[in-house]
Every structure is written in structure tokens, then in C-alpha cells.
């Protein structure tokens, strides 16, 4: 680039010499990144759908409509429908308290919210077995009163709630902290009560963050395997969620059916990604 410049023009000392652009460096980096993505994301995703449809579309539909698969889908939705709203309410409450107020034990609360992220899901399931299982603390009492938690739906719901606990709160805390407290203070000075402030000022400001948290929470609730596996007992048609059902089919060498059910989870992931992208775009658009 310097060939045509007369040499007498002094170059300011602070300006680094401009190097000729090497075009293959960015190209190579992009290629590596794409190859990596293809190998670890696209190939497995494509394989899921390929294997699922290997024996034809009719077999695929049958595998999904089969009663045990259908009950697994139902249970998965049941667990998510209970866990997501509970964690939504808890997440909003916790984030509101943490971001907008000062109190003792705040850092302890933040640590506790993160606990499910730092604990292995298997341990999360085991905790409930140790508490509610027949040999557990409350097990004998529950058995006496004919209440089943472990190897039954309540256990699955509890385990799901536990592992999806941080999603909404974790999404909202940094957002609310960044927005500060001035708008809430302004609302209070104007005479708004705590509920009015929450409803008309705080929540509208974080609505996209809430939706984002709910989407992630829901995806995890439906896809959770480890914790649910420990408390479920794998009773077909009763305590199997979709991920557990996939595992059972696979272990029985029923690969096409296993992949058919797995493809539903993969679809869920794709839909989640789609909504997530949409929410992010809206969020960007509004700020």
C-alpha cells in the first residue's frame, strides 16, 4: 500500500505500521469454526432425524403414537407445566428482592439460587430419594399415609423444579440490577404502592428477559434426564418422561423408535432456539 506514497511524508510515531491484510487468516478461522459446528452440532442433529425416519414415516408416526411414548410425552408436559410457572414466580420474586432491595443474607440467597447449576443432576435426584424414599427421612411416614413421592409423578416434578430452579432468576438478576432502582423510586414518590410499582414499572421493563428465562427453563424441564432418572423408577406408561423413554427404547435395541422420540426433543430444541432468537431481536429492538 505504501508504494505510491512519497517517502518524505512523516508517519506519526503513535500510528502502528499498517500490515498488508492476509485474507486467508479470517477465512481459515471461519472454516475451523464451521467445521467444528458441523461435526459436533449439525451431524448429530441430522443423524437424529435420519435414524428416526430410517424405517419410513409410517413407522415414525407409530413410534410416537404408541401408548407408552404418548404417556411419556404427557408426563414430560405435566412436569414442565408445574415446574415452569413455579420457577417463574420464584425467579421473579428472588430477582426483584436481590436487585431492588438490600437485606442480610443476600449473597447467601444468590449462592443458593446457583446451587442446582453447580450440583450434578444425579445428586439432585438422589437428594429426593434420601428424603422421600422408603429408607429416607420422611419415607416411612409417607408410606404410612399412602403417599408416593419417589418412583411416582411427584418425585419427577420435584426433581424437575430443582434442576430448573435458577433459570428465570439468573436471567433477571443482572438485567434488573443494570436497570437500577431509580424508576422504582420515582414510582414510589409518585404514590405507587409496592404491587403497583412491580406490575406497572418493574415487570414491563424486564418482560423479554422473563420470556427468555421461561423458554430456557422450559427447555431444561422437558429435557432433564439425570435427576429425573434417579427418582423415576422407569415404570413404563407411568413414570417415564420422554428422555427416559428414549433411553429405554435404545437399550432395547429399538433404535428407530428411540430416535423417533429423540427427534421430538430435538424439535423442541429447534423451536426453543427459534423463539429465543426472536425474543433477543425484540429485546434489541426495544432498547
Amino acid at each position: 500500500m505504501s508504494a505510491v506514497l512519497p517517502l518524505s511524508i512523516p508517519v506519526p510515531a503513535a500510528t502502528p505500521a499498517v500490515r498488508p491484510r492476509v485474507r486467508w487468516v479470517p477465512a481459515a478461522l471461519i472454516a475451523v469454526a464451521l467445521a467444528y459446528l458441523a461435526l459436533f452440532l449439525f451431524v448429530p442433529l441430522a443423524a437424529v432425524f435420519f435414524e428416526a425416519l430410517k424405517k419410513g414415516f409410517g413407522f415414525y408416526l407409530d413410534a410416537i403414537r404408541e401408548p407408552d411414548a404418548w404417556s411419556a410425552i404427557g408426563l414430560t408436559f405435566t412436569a414442565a407445566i408445574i415446574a415452569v410457572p413455579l420457577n417463574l414466580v420464584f425467579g421473579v420474586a428472588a430477582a426483584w428482592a436481590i436487585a431492588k432491595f438490600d437485606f442480610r443474607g443476600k449473597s447467601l440467597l444468590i449462592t443458593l439460587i446457583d446451587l442446582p447449576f453447580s450440583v450434578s443432576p444425579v445428586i439432585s435426584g438422589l437428594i429426593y430419594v434420601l428424603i422421600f424414599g422408603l429408607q429416607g427421612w420422611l419415607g416411612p411416614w409417607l408410606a404410612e399415609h399412602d403417599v408416593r413421592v419417589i418412583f411416582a409423578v411427584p418425585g419427577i416434578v420435584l426433581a424437575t423444579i430443582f434442576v430448573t430452579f435458577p433459570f428465570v432468576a439468573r436471567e433477571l438478576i443482572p438485567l434488573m440490577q443494570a436497570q437500577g432502582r431509580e424508576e422504582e423510586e420515582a414510582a414510589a414518590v409518585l404514590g405507587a404502592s409496592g404491587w403497583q410499582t412491580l406490575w406497572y414499572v418493574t415487570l414491563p421493563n424486564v418482560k423479554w428477559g422473563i420470556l427468555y428465562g421461561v423458554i430456557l427453563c422450559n427447555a431444561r424441564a422437558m429435557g432433564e434426564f439425570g435427576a429425573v432418572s434417579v427418582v423415576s423408577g422407569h415404570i413404563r406408561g407411568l413414570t417415564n418422561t420422554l428422555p427416559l423413554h428414549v433411553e429405554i427404547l435404545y437399550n432395547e435395541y429399538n433404535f428407530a423408535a428411540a430416535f423417533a422420540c429423540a427427534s421430538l426433543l430435538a424439535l423442541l430444541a429447534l423451536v426453543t432456539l427459534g423463539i429465543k432468537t426472536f425474543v433477543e431481536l425484540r429485546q434489541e429492538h426495544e432498547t
Partner: protein
Amino acid sequence: MSIQVVDVTKRFGTFEALNGVNLEIQPGELVALLGPSGSGKTTLLRVIAGLEQPDTGRILFNDEDTTHTRVQEREVGFVFQHYALFRHMSIFENVAFGLRVRPRAQRPNEAEIRRRVLALLKLVQLDWLADRYPHQLSGGQRQRIALARALAIEPKVLLLDEPFGALDAKVRKELRRWLRRLHDEINLTSVFVTHDQEEALEVADRVVVVNHGRIEQIGTPEEVYDHPATPFVYQFIGHVNRFRDPHAASDANAAYVRPHDIDISEQPDASAIQATLQHAVKIGAFVRLELARNDNGDLVEVELSRERFDHLNVANGKVVYLKPRHSKVFIEEAA
């Protein structure tokens, strides 16, 4: 509505934000709380508003104790430093908010809300912005909307935290004149916080100088400028020279002199201070001179009219004789 602050103390952890503050504000006054950052002036404003609870002391509105009245019921208008407009609401809804959140029995009907909001927007000369959103407005416009919103609840007092702090110099000047006119129009007891002495002196009826959580002086702009009560006020408001006695062991008993209260002469004078001119800057109608005292090397700043400077005909490096016209000595400064 008068405001009384009685013996108010407020700590944040080990930091003493307010330390035994007493202040009385008359109905209809426009008062400036002036001080450097960290002096406690914003905390004082927030305590008056009810956004902070004082550790000790009381706040009285019209001789009525409001120390424990909740901020929602205190009926104050508060304008935040960064405006704190509700970002997801239109300008109209921002101003209407205070009316809409009232209990049903006291809430005006929709037509009345509309009438009042538009009247307020007209008052701040921004009625054409009703349908916009805060992020579409300039800083000065947001500031005026924040004021309209604060006035919507018909507050008993108006409190403004650094109302012009985030604006550029030109808008700031326009807005503060506008605020002064607005205050004369609606005559609402108002308190504003500022770190800008020029702003305080120009806008306020009375200035309260705050430093380290204490009030240093309360007075009209003329009083605090012409008769500062403490060395801090002298140094904080306007420029000042400290003349140390070159023979004294300590800094005590230094004399404070404004740069425009010093006369310069070329004629030797036994009672004058000998100094060497180092630098002269012409700023508009006056000239600012920087001189070094010959006896102890201290820098002295002098302001002369352009005319007087031209008449003197001095150049850098020349020895001249300084004679303070007014000076003030604070005997107990060292204590």
C-alpha cells in the same frame, strides 16, 4: 409549605453522610444545596423526600412531623438526576402515572387526567411530544418531562437532584433560567442539589453550602459570595487566594482574598506584597494574571479589567506590588 430539618444524622456503614443537619426552608423559597460530591447534599434531599430514613432527627412539613410518613404519602415531587422516566411508557403515560396509581376514590376520571397531563405538558412547552417515548427525547426534553411528571401529583414541595448535571453547557444555562421563571410562576417550595456554584448563585433565593455532612453556611447568593462564613465556603464559591504569613510557623491566620479584590501597582510600596508576573490570560472583558510571591513563592491569582491591564503595561517576569482591597482572616482555621 415550609420544610424543617432538625438534627438529622445519617450513616451508611461507617460513612457519615449527614451529621447533625439543621435547616429551615420558607414557603415558596427556591433553595440550592451546594457542595462537592460526597458532601451529603443528595442524601439530605433524599431524606427530605422520604427515600432515606434519617438515623436520628426529624423532618417537618408545615410544622408537622413527617419523619415516619412513607414516601408514597409525603406528596413531594422529586426529579431524579438521570430523570428516571418510565422507559416503556409514552410521555403522556409517564406524566399520567402519578394520577393513575391513586386509590380509586381519589383518582380523576380519564378526561380529567387527559386535561391535566396536557396542561402540564404545555407548561413545560412539550405538549407536542405526548406520544413519544423517553428514548426518543433529548436530555433537556427528558428533564422537563421529569419535572412535569413530578408536578402532576400537585406536590407540596419540589425536590430536584442535580437537575442540570447531565446536560451540556448551553442547554443547562437555558434550562436553569427557565426553571427560575417557572418557580416564580408556580411558587412552589423547591430545593435543588448542585455541585455547580454558578448554578446555585444564579438560580436560588438562598444557598445552603454543605461539606462533609455538615452545613457550612446558609445565606443569599450575595451573602455566601461576599461574606463566606468559613474557609471552605471561601474556597468553594468563587476563586480565592490564600495569603500565608511568610514568618508564621503554621498555616493558621491566612488571609483570603478574591482575585478581583487585589490591586496591582508598579510603584514600590512597603506595605504591599512583591510578586513576579508569570502569566497573563485574556478572557473576554477581563485578564487573569498568575503571579509568584517573591518572599515565599506562593502563587497568586489576580483578575483585572482589560482596560486596567492595558494601562499597567506589564510583561511576564516583571516585578509588581500587590495590595488586597478586601481580605478575610479565619483565626481558628488550624483548629
